[in-house]
């Protein structure tokens, strides 16, 4: 480690090296680690009015975590069924969005990665340019498409598929579409990056040895693209589970996303410790799930960075 630091300073000089190192440390520690630690600290404290903070009542407690599992004390129920259901539904929905995105994006990434020519650049631009538009505006655009009198319903009724408008929003279809669309680039680009570097001769060699197209993908392309696939899936899963704008705008009235509960705790209930506890549970569970799935598919942590 000291050797690495010495080399780093030798290469960049003391001044530039110190600035670079300082900025990186400020970014990781000041902007990421410390606020998260402060959240962690919050989550173990009772919600007190400001004058009592630091007072005798301000002691570490598991109250906030208990609340997620068992609900309010004396609430008359064994478990906090409402919040827990939102929690696992969020995780399952995020996983489904991830799988759906993977199935949708793999062929696109393969096509982008293995074709040659200028049309690929145009194709990639067409994917990127919509992301210049604010995420909330994009969500509202989808609302316009999926709404009761929206484009989709007008077309479907006009062409006689439905007699009356289908409620895409109440049925969460708009939400899943919105979440899927929101992170499509994060799925495509890691896969595209890896598949682009796959030697085309390997595909031809497999074909020459008699392999049908699906086996070429199964045995040659997918194993090779695994780091990209896991990187894309991790990002999409984490971001979908942590999404707020899309569920807020596209979610049906009856379906809450877990992030919305966290938001309510912080903003509506003004209960920061409770919100922090919910956020910590979501973060830890998501990380654990990702690590478990990576282990199942034998992906190394180093591969994610590729």
């Amino acid at each position, binding site marked *: 480690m000291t050797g690495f630091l010495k080399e780093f300073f030798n290469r960049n000089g003391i001044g530039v090296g110190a600035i670079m190192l300082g900025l990186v440390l400020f970014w990781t520690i000041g902007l990421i680690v410390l606020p998260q630690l402060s959240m962690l600290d919050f989550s173990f404290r009772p919600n007190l009015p400001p004058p009592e903070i630091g007072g005798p009542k301000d002691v570490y407690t598991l109250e906030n975590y208990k609340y997620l599992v068992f609900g309010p004390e004396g609430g008359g129920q064994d478990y906090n069924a409402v919040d827990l259901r939102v929690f696992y539904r969020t995780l399952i929905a995020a996983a489904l969005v991830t799988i759906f995105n993977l199935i949708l994006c793999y062929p696109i990434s393969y096509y982008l990665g293995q074709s040659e020519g200028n049309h690929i650049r145009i194709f990639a631009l067409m994917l990127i340019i919509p992301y210049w538009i604010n995420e909330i505006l994009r969500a509202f655009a989808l609302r316009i498409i999926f709404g009761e009198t929206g484009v989709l319903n007008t077309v479907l009724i006009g062409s006689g598929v439905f007699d009356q408008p289908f409620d895409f929003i109440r049925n969460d279809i708009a939400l899943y579409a919105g979440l899927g669309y929101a992170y499509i680039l994060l799925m495509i680009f890691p896969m595209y990056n890896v598949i682009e570097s796959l*030697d085309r*001769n*390997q595909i*031809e*060699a*497999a*074909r*020459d*040895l*008699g*392999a*049908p197209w699906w*086996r070429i993908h199964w*045995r*040659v392309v997918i*194993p*090779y693209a695994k780091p990209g696939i896991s990187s894309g899936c991790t990002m999409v899963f984490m971001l979908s589970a942590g999404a707020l704008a899309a569920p807020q705008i596209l979610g049906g009235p009856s379906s809450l996303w877990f992030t919305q509960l966290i938001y309510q705790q912080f903003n509506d209930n003004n209960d920061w410790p409770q919100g922090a506890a919910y956020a910590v549970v979501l973060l830890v569970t998501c990380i654990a799930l990702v690590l478990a799935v990576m282990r199942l598919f034998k992906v190394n942590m180093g591969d994610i960075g590729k």
Partner: protein
Amino acid sequence: MSAGVGVDLENLWIRFGDFVAVRDANVHIKGGDFFSFLGPSGCGKTTILRAVSGFLDPSEGKVLIGGNNMIGIGPNKRPTALIFQNLALFPLMKVWENITFSMEIRGASSAERRKRADELLDMIALPDQGDKFPSELSGGQRQRVAIARALCAEPDVLLLDEPLSALDLKLRQHMRTELREIQKRVGITFIYITHDQGEALTMSDDIAVMRAGVIDQIGDGKAIYNDPATAFAASFVGENNVFRGKIKQVNGGEALISTNRSGDLVARISSANQGKLNVGDDAMMFIRPEALAIAPDGASGDHFVTANVTHEEFEGNSYNIFSEGEGGKEIKVSIPNLGQSFENHTGQSITLEYETKNAVVVPAGELAAE
């Protein structure tokens, strides 16, 4: 193994837009032969190979394998196996999985595949290396794994696209012998693509010399080397000295060529051009460096060339004398080193002689780039 399945190209044309990559190729490759396509890069030899393997559809003409027209049959259904220039081994599969990939596709059990992999690993002299990954092998070993993988598919025709070009010189020369031995052992037809005339000459039964999409000459190594059909074939295969001139006289199989620099010279008309050269035609005469010798001073006649020596070099097995030639090309004389002493001629004018049978005349044409 199969008795050897022949490959025929009939009036084969391959175009990419306006560009003609292969022009009216007609080739008959006998079953069990080692056949090479020899030519500079961009001459269309790889395109022909892709048409035989099925990755490319010809614009016109036929590809026949064992007499069956292959047009419209995909590469995974043809009785061919291709060895790629960069080998294209599957990096995430172990060596034995690589070798038996074709069996996996046919649904063979893991035990069967293991057994066959071991047999093939023995054949390519890599026993017990099956559990390694390709990245753990040396270049030559990977080369042999690629051959084993292709042979495991039991093809009737093995296609090789410059597979030795990535190896260093020593290994390349060793692999030539090895490839030839493997071919004799398995007895199937090999079609080999190369720009290296040494590879083509040492391994092949027959060679097709290609230039800009056209097959200039088909013949065995000796015919290609000693009896070139075109100026390109003469200048591309091995070293050759060129003398330009006009046909002054034709006597049966020989012609007298009047050159600008060296007067009238006599040469044998190459077999492919017998009866086709007429008095007054532009012609090129070729003499190999090793077929020239220093003549006694003052000798003159129709098989003597005067030359001004510019520089000399000692190459170990030969002593090379370079002198001014025509059109910026030098005349090179190679005198084999048999232990005699070599005089220094630099700056002098010397007379060179050759035997008529070692000089060959063809119609004037494009020369191979250096």
